[in-house]
């Protein structure tokens, strides 16, 4: 579904992605972990070209990601993204947030889009909040609304960049539950997270990044129980003692 080859990215002098190759199969859930600053977010954002790479290529569902314009917009419509800071559109209701892109990008009718939006909001457990403004919702509810907004485009892939890092601890679970449900339904997912419990439970594969490189990857059980590299062992020792 995703095929990234030889991704290289510099921010000025800073080489943030170094020859990153990543393949994600249809229905696969890949969890990306690694220390802060290792390039996880950047990798995630390069997959839908919110960031451009200086070298390398991303192919989504057999189509090389176009450089710009309408073609790129079309590609992004098929790749859902969930941000750490939710980024719900502040000036419109939760329902309108979910309805906007299906109507404006896919050309769906308002009635149909609203019907499926309400279903999606029910599915993520916030059907009762549909007519409120984002600012009136808790963080966990906002993130679930953001997931519903992305799902409304019936994306082929969902990208999550630390979806629970901005949440109060008691709200992390409700968001992870929604994501686990999605994974179980066969959604193709790339998830950057520090939630190792989620990685163990929901991931098909864990990718460990450090210094802009993929240092190690494997099935969650293998990765957590017997990491092969010192960097990974080090990292796991730090995060798992908390």
């Amino acid at each position, binding site marked *: 579904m995703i095929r990234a080859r030889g991704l290289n990215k510099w921010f000025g002098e800073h080489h943030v992605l170094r020859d990153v190759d990543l393949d994600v199969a249809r229905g696969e859930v890949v969890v990306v972990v690694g220390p802060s600053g290792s390039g996880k977010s950047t990798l995630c954002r390069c997959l*839908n070209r*919110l960031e451009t790479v200086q070298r390398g290529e991303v192919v989504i569902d057999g189509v090389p990601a176009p450089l*710009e*314009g*309408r073609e790129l*917009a*079309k*590609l*992004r*419509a*098929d*790749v*859902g*993204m969930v*941000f750490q*800071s939710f*980024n*719900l*559109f*502040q*000036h419109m209701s939760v329902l309108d947030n979910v309805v*906007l*892109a299906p109507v*404006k*990008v896919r050309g769906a009718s308002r009635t149909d889009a609203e019907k499926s939006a309400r279903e999606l909001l029910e599915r993520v457990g916030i059907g009762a909040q549909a007519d409120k*403004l984002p*600012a009136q919702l808790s963080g966990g509810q906002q993130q679930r609304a*953001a997931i519903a*907004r*992305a799902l409304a*485009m019936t994306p082929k892939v969902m990208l999550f960049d630390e979806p629970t890092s901005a949440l109060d601890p008691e709200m992390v679970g409700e968001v992870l539950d929604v994501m686990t449900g999605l994974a179980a339904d066969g959604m193709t997912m790339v998830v950057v997270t520090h939630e190792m419990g989620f990685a163990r439970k929901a991931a098909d594969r864990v990718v460990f990044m450090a210094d802009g490189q993929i240092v190690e990857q494997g099935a969650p059980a293998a990765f957590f129980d017997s990491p092969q590299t010192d960097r990974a062992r080090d990292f796991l020792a730090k995060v798992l003692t908390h």
Partner: protein
Amino acid sequence: MSVLLDHLPELWQGLLVTLQLTVASFVGAAVLGVLVTAMRVSPVPVLRALGTAYVETFQNLPLLVLLVLVFFGLPEIGIKGPPMATAIVVIAVYQAAYMAEALRSGVNSVSKGQAEAARALGLTFGQSLRLVILPQALRTVVQPLGNLTIQLIMSTALAGAISVVDLTEAAKRVNLQEAQPIAIFVGSGLAYAAIAAAVGYVTGRLERRLVIMR
């Protein structure tokens, strides 16, 4: 006071012209201002440069010079418009530069995440701007836009220079006959103040309503 009453028809006519100038050039300035703002935040470098050049040019020219230049200069190269239309276009073009500057600061105050989320959903640049960024940007700049509108009302008083008989020009003409500058200009000044107050009132109402929605 009686001098105002004696010349009420001319002054009233002048006030109507002032209102026409204000409304028409406001609409023009708003539309152009949004376009220039879109250019200035667009991903295309040429458009950005053009937008910046526009703002820099018109912010650095006196409106009176521009009015006179266009009205008396363009006929030299074969373009001639009636005074009223010329005044509306020139004032709109001029004020658009200031509106664009205010709107851009509004756009900058909208968090980058909003634009990213819009793009990530597959909205084009134009759609993100129109549906997501500008509606939020506008909320933050209601007050400056209101002030610019008041400035626009005042600048319509320059239209007399190209023989548009607006309120100020009408007052000048009445004064030539009657030589009672205090009564005549205090009277017309009050009319300007009343229009400005109305704009200020609408701005205040709008701002209070929009704040609740943020």
